């Protein structure tokens, strides 16, 4: 039978219901993509508004309380609705089964359920705009005792985060079982692409950490509703206990955000250097090491909030230890580039942008992990700069790199590469103009979470706000270019647009419903052995 007559997964069924009730992992991945992008754009608009307020000292746009609500909403959206689900729920869902040579995840119905739970949680978070005293103004961390006392809709925001946790757990559970049960014959653990390894480690963290935040958030709700002091000291509670419980989840959550991005980079580099990844096993195991050590470092968020000296030193040392497996990865990536035949394409640019920015993020993280300097920098703009470098400059860039990489495979179309390159350059310049000054104003002592600042911080803030405009321009150009690719005559994409070696490049673009039109062949010399396979 001629393979080209095969219907792709877009064509097998049409209509809205065939999407929102689809159990096809590819469609669920795309449902996640469209919803996550929508929330990301809302979050970006809120971020740009904050920067506008901070263009000059004094009040420009909004009241202090509004500003507090805006950064909370921005944080909640970016963390719970964008960055945590982003890569696993979109590209993990779409490509994990294909990379393993199977036709779906282990529990397709639970997978669909997870998207629905995500939507419900998202609507709950947004509903806080509509009633009562408006969205929470506590910051995305919901620190007690303020979160117990404020009149804003903390209860609803917190419940939304709780519900969203279920969606993550279902995705993680699905991936673990898929990896254990559905690898195609011959695909041993050490023949799996590194993206699969990264998702494996991530899924374990999701399972191990999410329940703790879930119950902690429920305790906040109960405290607000019943008025019993678990966390609020004025009614006998202990706010430090809240911080411990919160960060026991939320530090590992940082790796829920970062590990999938590492996986993406480990896919992009071999494809665009046409050589095997340097240190496959080291990269695979360092993911597990990060997942493990990452459990014992949460205290570095609490150096200034009351812990014994001994505890602080231990947490500081552990934090430095996490840097080791992370650095192993970075060195391996750089070594992969060395003497590769590098093919500069848009996805590779995003991978390089990732390495550069993630390094700044990681090194500034060490500055914060060191006790002495953290006491000075805690709750300053240095922290804001740091985590945007890691999450946005790191994971965000990897996400967009993945989007450019798999675009021809998912849709069987292509965007304009020149415009994609230009958009990347603008995006990259905008990003660094926006966030690098924050590291500096932080070092100068500017505190975070204020709508106003002293005149001496004016210059870095001005530059930063200009940066947000450049970044927004790059983003609009990038997304516009991707959307424009959907229209116009359909180019001939073929199966393997970039010359990749993982299994998704063996099937049609877009893939058929059951993913493969012929049995996938596993590369003989391991997942990235270009020499022996081409």
């Amino acid at each position, binding site marked *: 039978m001629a393979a080209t007559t095969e219907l792709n997964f877009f064509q097998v069924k049409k209509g809205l219901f065939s999407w929102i009730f689809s159990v096809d992992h590819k469609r669920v991945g795309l449902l996640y993509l469209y919803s996550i992008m929508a929330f990301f754009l809302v979050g970006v608009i809120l971020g740009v508004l904050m920067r506008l307020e901070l263009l000059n000292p004094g009040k420009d746009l909004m009241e202090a309380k509004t500003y507090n609500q805006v950064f909370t909403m921005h944080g909640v959206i970016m963390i719970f609705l964008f960055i945590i689900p982003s890569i696993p729920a979109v590209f993990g869902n779409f490509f994990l089964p294909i990379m393993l040579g199977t036709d779906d995840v282990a529990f397709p119905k639970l997978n669909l359920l997870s998207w629905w739970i995500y939507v419900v949680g998202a609507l709950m978070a947004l509903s806080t705009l509509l009633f009562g005293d408006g969205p929470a103004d506590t910051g995305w961390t919901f620190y007690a005792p303020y979160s117990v006392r404020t009149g804003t809709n903390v209860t609803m925001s917190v419940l939304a985060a709780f519900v969203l946790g279920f969606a993550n757990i279902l995705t993680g559970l699905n991936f673990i079982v898929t990896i254990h049960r559905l690898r195609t014959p011959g695909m041993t653990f050490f023949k799996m692409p590194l993206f699969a390894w990264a998702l494996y480690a991530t899924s374990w963290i999701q399972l191990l950490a999410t329940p703790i935040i879930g119950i902690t958030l429920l305790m906040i709700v109960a405290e607000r509703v019943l008025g019993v002091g*678990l966390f609020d000291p004025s009614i006998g509670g202990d706010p430090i206990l809240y911080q411990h419980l919160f960060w026991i989840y939320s530090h590992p959550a940082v790796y829920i955000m970062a590990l999938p991005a590492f996986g993406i980079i480990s896919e992009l580099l071999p494809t665009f250097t046409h050589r095997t990844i340097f240190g496959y096993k080291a990269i695979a195991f360092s993911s597990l090491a990060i997942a493990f050590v990452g459990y014992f470092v949460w205290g570095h968020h609490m150096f200034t909030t009351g812990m014994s000296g001994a505890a602080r030193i231990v947490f500081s040392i552990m934090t430095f230890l996490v840097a080791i497996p992370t650095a192993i990865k970075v060195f391996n990536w750089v070594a992969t580039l060395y003497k590769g035949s590098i093919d500069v394409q848009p996805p590779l640019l995003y991978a390089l942008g990732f390495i550069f920015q993630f390094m700044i993020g990681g090194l500034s993280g060490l500055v914060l992990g060191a006790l002495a300097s953290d006491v000075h920098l805690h709750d300053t703009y240095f922290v804001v700069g740091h985590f945007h470098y890691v999450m946005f400059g790191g994971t965000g860039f990897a996400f967009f790199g993945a989007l450019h990489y798999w675009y021809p495979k998912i849709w069987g179309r292509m965007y304009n590469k020149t415009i994609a390159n230009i958009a990347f350059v603008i995006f990259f310049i905008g990003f660094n103009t926006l966030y690098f000054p924050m590291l500096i104003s932080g070092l100068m002592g500017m505190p975070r979470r204020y709508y106003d600042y002293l005149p001496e911080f004016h210059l870095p803030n001005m530059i930063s706000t200009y940066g947000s405009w450049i970044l927004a321009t790059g983003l609009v150009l990038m997304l516009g270019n991707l959307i424009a690719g959907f229209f116009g005559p359909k180019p001939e994409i073929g199966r393997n647009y970039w010359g990749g070696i993982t299994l998704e490049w063996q099937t049609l673009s877009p893939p058929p419903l059951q993913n493969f039109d012929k049995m996938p062949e596993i590369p003989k010399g391991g997942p990235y052995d270009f020499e022996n396979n081409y």
Partner: protein
Amino acid sequence: MEHHSGLVLPNSGHNRDAEASKLGMWLFLFTEFLLFGGLFIVYMVYRMLNPEAFLTASYQLNVTLGAMNTVVLLVSSMTIAMSITAIQQGNSKRSIQLLVFTVAASLVFLVIKYFEWSAKIHHGLFPGMDVFNRLPHGEGLFFYLYFFMTGLHALHIIIGAIFIVVVIFRTKNGLLNADNYSHTENAGLYWHLVDMIWIYLFPLFYLIH
């Protein structure tokens, strides 16, 4: 309507895979255990901070009712385990009888719990009530955690019972049988978890004197 080349992948996500569904269940139980784990940590911290108050408050609980519920749950755990053996041996009817017994036990548990709770509420010990508000802080925390943790546990009992009822109907319809009983097994796993959590709650609240 199917349009494909007829290629069937050996390991398909749409195959029936009892191993996979059990693995999934185990992972889920793991998250449930951690959920309660967070509460156990809070309990431990506050018990260490208020040993006297927790002790005083714990004398208010009715050990007899608590012990009865422990027995009820242990028996129900046994019956659900037996129902799995029954269906393995192809005896669906016996399996259903044992499952019905398990659901009945869950109802007994909830009824006993209801009497326990209403006695406490009658004495004004629910958070926010007058007697509760006059309690020393440590004793208040005890009752607060008592209601929170046993309440969450009771919610799990209800979910577990619904799960078992679904399994009963699926067995009746012949969907579950000697060749395909992973749902029965999963219901059993879940029920054992609910049981095990109670085995921790019971001594923590009723017995430590």
